[in-house]
């Protein structure tokens, strides 16, 4: 016969105003197996906890039911108190008579009766509970950071500076990401590359960071603290150890007309190339899709001119595996291309460009060396129109969200244009100006008031070309919806920020959830913004949602702290609320028949196969399922799938749950 204690909390008036707590305690005292029952005003207070501790000792209780608020609030509190009094913490259950009862019903006998029923259910459950031990999982103290933009760079540096090893992988030939493409940054107009490149160099030189560029994650197995990452190192076709980065090959390469990704198609690059002068590592790769050697079997000029014989045409992709304890996703974002917009010419007008292309035009390292010249004929545009919210906040375009960065960079673009073309005329069409950030509003006012940018509140219905001009037809909603028509030389679309290419595929590979727009989902939008729902995988930057540089860096540091926090523990302690396959003495071993329905049902890949072997002959007697305690999240899907009822949830076994439900249904 068990000895159970029942402790009914008044929660001030939260419970006591509608539930007769004293009656609940008195009734519970008469339940089978209940040794002691009482009520108290605040059970979570120190005296309340002491009440529980003393009762455990005095009455030698082997189970405790605290009838109070939701277990999400104080279950840890009460379990800790029990544990301090010598009771296994998992022998303490919380009966939720606040959220499930007092808060949602009127004062009355029925409400008190419901509270009694809830308590009876938990008493029945706790009398069948088993003591459980927390799970300890070792941690590999090395992090994998995916993506080498500013988010990945910041996260890597912060983790590395905390003393842990970092593997940073980047799919492009250089780290730097979008930030390396930007001209100046708002709201201070400091040069993007000037503030970024020192960090890129720091990454390359940091003793704790191993950098793999031109590399992608192939596969991730394992669980928090114990991941195994397989990384594909794409063939660069050069021997990096031998290459000195002299650049002779890139100057001699005859294939020179490949649209440069770094310059957003506004400039060209060669087939063997370094994406930009400050690239890290500053060593070229061969783009096999455009190289004459790979495509037609000719040329080989780079191989001939290379003074160190670093060109290796025969190189293949290679794979490495790394054990890591945590993963930071920092895969960034992209912007829509102009061809998404039929009303703005469907990408057929050369002088309708994206904001990112404008960055390249305004950048000293760009195709025009920082002069604003239109792509079609290289002329300096005298009239320029910026269209904010191109795609964003437009459910008809499938993008209801705000891309967040456009208001600010559009103000910056217009400002840069006015600084470079003094007699030029710039117009910004906007829906609202969202300038919430430190010194952001002041920055926009500066564009309007000091630099004379013409801000028009209204949408642009259409852009079409006529006699070498782009006719921009919009509306000024602040002037009574007056139609506005501007003959512009160039139009810049602040196109919506979207998830990066391959985001969905990567999310599925990592079992990380994502939103309908393929941005990775955080575990909680407010309180767990840099964690994913998969333990040990964290988010940094714009792979989660469009973010500007300050927010990205803050998120990256946040993710790094989460990783460092994880690595600061000797091992990982997890609640033992996980599934378990039953085991029995020979010759049955387990009722599991090895159908592995559970394996297909498990969303966390936590089901493994265990071979039961004859001790003498080593022959396999049967193969049964085994739950990996590190991976199992205790969702219980396998339990409902199991045909032979061989899997049960620890702490929520079928027996425990049925007993609770049956007790609830009793009159």
């Amino acid at each position: 016969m068990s000895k159970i204690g029942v402790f009914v909390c008044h929660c001030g008036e939260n419970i006591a105003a509608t539930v007769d707590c004293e009656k609940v305690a008195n009734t519970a005292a008469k339940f089978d197996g209940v040794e002691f029952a009482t009520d108290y005003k605040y059970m979570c207070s120190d005296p309340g906890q002491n009440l529980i501790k003393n009762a455990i000792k005095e009455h030698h209780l082997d189970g405790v039911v605290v009838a109070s608020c939701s277990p999400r609030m104080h279950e840890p509190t009460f379990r800790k108190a029990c544990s301090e009094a010598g009771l296994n913490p998992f022998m303490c259950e919380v009966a939720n008579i606040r959220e499930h009862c007092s808060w949602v019903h009127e004062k009355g006998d029925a409400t008190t009766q419901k509270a009694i029923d809830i308590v009876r259910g938990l008493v029945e459950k706790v009398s069948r509970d088993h003591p459980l031990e927390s799970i300890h999982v070792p941690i590999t103290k090395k992090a994998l950071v995916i993506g080498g933009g500013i988010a990945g760079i910041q996260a890597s540096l912060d983790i590395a500076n905390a003393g842990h090893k970092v593997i940073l992988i980047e799919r492009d030939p250089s780290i730097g990401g979008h930030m390396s493409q930007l001209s100046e940054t708002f709201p201070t107009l400091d040069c993007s590359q000037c503030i970024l490149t020192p960090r890129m160099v720091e990454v390359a030189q940091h003793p704790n960071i191993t950098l793999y560029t031109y590399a992608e994650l192939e596969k991730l197995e394992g669980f928090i603290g114990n991941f195994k990452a397989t990384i594909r190192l794409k063939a660069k076709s050069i021997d990096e150890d031998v290459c000195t980065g002299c650049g002779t090959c890139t100057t001699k390469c005859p294939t020179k007309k490949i649209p440069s990704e770094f310059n957003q198609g506004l400039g060209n690059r060669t087939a063997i190339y370094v994406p930009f002068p400050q690239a890290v590592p500053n060593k070229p790769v061969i783009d096999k899709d455009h190289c004459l050697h790979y495509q037609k079997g000719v040329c080989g000029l780079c191989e001939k001119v290379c003074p160190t014989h670093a060109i290796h045409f025969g190189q293949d992709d290679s794979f490495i595996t790394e054990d890591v304890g945590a993963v930071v996703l920092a895969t960034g974002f992209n912007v829509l291309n102009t061809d998404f917009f039929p009303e703005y010419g469907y990408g057929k007008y050369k002088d309708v460009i994206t904001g990112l292309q404008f960055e390249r035009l305004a950048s000293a390292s760009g195709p025009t060396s920082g002069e604003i010249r239109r792509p079609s004929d290289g002329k300096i545009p005298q009239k320029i129109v910026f269209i904010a919210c191109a795609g964003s906040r437009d459910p008809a375009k499938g993008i209801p969200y705000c891309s967040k960065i456009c208001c600010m960079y559009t103000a910056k673009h217009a400002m840069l244009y006015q600084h470079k073309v003094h007699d030029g005329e710039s117009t910004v069409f906007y829906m609202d100006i969202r300038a919430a950030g430190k010194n952001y509003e002041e920055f926009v006012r500066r564009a309007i008031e000091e630099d004379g940018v013409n801000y028009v509140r209204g949408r642009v219905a259409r852009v079409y070309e006529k006699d070498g001009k782009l006719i921009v037809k919009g509306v000024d909603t602040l002037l009574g919806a007056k139609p506005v028509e501007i003959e512009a030389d160039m139009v810049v679309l602040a196109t919506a920020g979207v998830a990066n290419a391959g985001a969905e595929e990567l999310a599925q590979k990592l079992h990380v959830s994502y939103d309908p727009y393929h941005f990775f989902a955080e575990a909680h939008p407010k309180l767990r913004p840099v964690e994913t729902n998969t333990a040990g995988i964290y988010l940094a930057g714009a792979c989660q949602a469009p973010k500007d540089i300050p927010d990205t860096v803050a998120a990256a540091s946040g993710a790094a702290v989460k990783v460092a926090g994880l690595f600061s523990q000797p091992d990982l302690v997890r609640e033992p609320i996980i599934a378990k396959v039953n085991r029995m003495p020979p010759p049955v071993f387990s009722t599991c028949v090895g159908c592995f329905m559970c394996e297909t049902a498990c969303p966390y890949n936590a089901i493994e196969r265990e071979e039961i072997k004859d001790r003498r002959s080593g022959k396999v007697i049967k193969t049964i399922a085994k739950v990996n305690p590190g991976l199992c999240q205790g969702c219980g899907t396998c339990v409902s799938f199991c045909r032979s009822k061989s899997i049960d949830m620890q702490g929520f076994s079928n027996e425990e749950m049925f007993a609770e439900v049956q007790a609830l249904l009793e009159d």
Partner: protein
Amino acid sequence: MKIGFYPGCSLKGTSREYNESVQAICKALDVELVTIKDWNCCGATAAHSMNRALSLALPARVLALAEQQGMDEIVVPCASCYNRLSVTQYELANDENLKKEVVDAMGLPYEGKVRILNVIQMIEKYLLDVIPAKVTSKFEHAVACYYGCLLVRPHKILNFDRVEDPQSMDRIISLIGGTPIDWGFKTECCGAGLSVSRTDLVAKLSANIVKDAADRGAKAIIVACPMCHSNLDMRRPDINEVLDSPIDIPVLYITQAIGLAIGLSVEELGLQRHFVKVNL
């Protein structure tokens, strides 16, 4: 092949030539159009700006008649009728109470299952494969395909073509040997029903359309809407008053262009009825 047919008022009046050309090409391409018996006006602009219930009941009755007469698909050449019928079907499908109210008012059973096609959709669905073999004299002209407002909007309901930059007529014109030009006014408003009350506005709006088409070298404007046609064609003297120099490029229905390509006569296609003479 048989298909239901709802002419609407315009095709019996100001745009008889649209009706004639639709009938003529369908006959030539072996499509039998079965007119809905006892059809009524769809309510057009008047009803839906004055009385919502009426603006739904009138098209609903047309759809109910089509159902009653065993039609599962109807062709509606007039863009405005097409729009009103489609909007009615959509609104009734999404509001049970409204549907009941309208059904009670018209006193006919209504399911809302009839598929509504405009002329372009009918051509795309049934005639794209048939036309090339029948082309006797290629329609070798540079033309501006003008879609106007009602064929493509609201996109959520009509779900026809690319709303900002429709292509369907351009494709048909290419198919019969023509060259659709790229221009900026494909879906701009012609002034529509203001034709009568504010002819000055219609002249101004339609002038933009005609001028851009002519400036870009179009030898004709191709339409699939009686309202667009009458504004660009019948109101041409008013348009020319607004313009610096008069423009005399004709306005043809898409069905007339196809008719010319498959060798039908000017009279069969009603081309002699236009205000701006057709000399192609």
